[in-house]
């Protein structure tokens, strides 16, 4: 084994902390009628869980609610997850 291989080097991996969507208590639901596609929600999501088409990646969205709280059109509502 080379020295470099023996070092504790972590490799970039999607889902390295699991499917964080399972943390969610409330899920963001976008009302496309009210949305004007300003992109503020996607810009402010810490997790980059909202893509360019403004689709929320529910596999990873943690349900923090920033997107809903900051949406200038109040187009996002946080709905309780069914357990």
């Amino acid at each position, binding site marked *: 084994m080379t020295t470099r291989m023996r070092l504790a080097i972590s490799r970039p991996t*999607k889902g*390295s*902390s699991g499917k964080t969507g399972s*943390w969610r208590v409330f899920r963001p639901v976008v009302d496309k009628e009210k949305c004007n596609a300003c992109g503020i929600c996607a810009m*402010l999501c*810490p997790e980059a869980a909202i893509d360019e088409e403004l689709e929320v990646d529910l596999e990873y969205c*943690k349900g*923090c*609610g920033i997107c809903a709280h*900051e949406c200038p059109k109040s187009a996002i509502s946080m709905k309780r997850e069914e357990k």
Partner: protein
Amino acid sequence: MTEIPTEEYILKCTSACAGCSDTLTLRYVLKAAGPDMVLVVPACCTSVIQGAYPNTAMNVPVYNVAFAAAAACASGMSAAFQAAGRKTRVIVYAGDGGTVDIGIQSLSGAFERGTDFLYICYDNEAYGNTGMQRSGSTPAGARTTTTPAGKVQTKKDLDGIVAAHNPPYMATACAAYPRDLFKKVEKALSIRGPKFIHVLAPCPPGWRFSSEKSVEMGKLAVKTGMWILYEREQGKVTISGPSKAAMIKPLPLEEYLAPQGRFKGIDAASVALLKAQAEKTAKRLLREEEGTC
């Protein structure tokens, strides 16, 4: 300004708490720096949320290093890249505890030597990763796990200390203003020598507010004048747009304090102290901007 790139350098998702501003800050720092960079990260929330060996959410090289050594380590890296003729950007990304308390001597050394690197301190105003103990950056009156009755001392003037090293570029930013943050990181990286950016990063569990209010809390910090956004280029101060607007008619400080559990029951003397400090900093920066001090 160039458009903010759509590339993401943090793979979904880190283990950060929901609504974490450290994560939001890092997202834009990495976008501004691009792939040819190395992050130097001492122990802090960031070093934990990277993920556990053998996996990491970070899609850029990250070097984890002891608290006191971050800027020293960056100095060595920067010199090595220079010797190899590489333009790889070296960025230290450290918490407030790791900067204002533990890492300050190596930070000072690197700035004195003129190391070509960018030092970013994301400031959640306590030792977040170990359970929110007070740091030198915790503001007066804030309850932490080691100041259950509210901190007696005031927040250390880290920016004043860095400014005394006369770096070619330094700035403050806030996670709630990602465009402003992105621009500042981009500008800093276009300049040679030691650069510094101090980013206020509201922390939902640490400051005791609910996760959806992270961005709102950052904006309130700026709008009440508790946090002032500015740049200092070759010593010349420019107050940034959002703070310029806020200085004309600041919101009452109470609007920032009231939603945060860490300020619950804060006494009038501490509020007065915070107010006086904010006003003093604003006045000093305005005078510096005008060039009258």
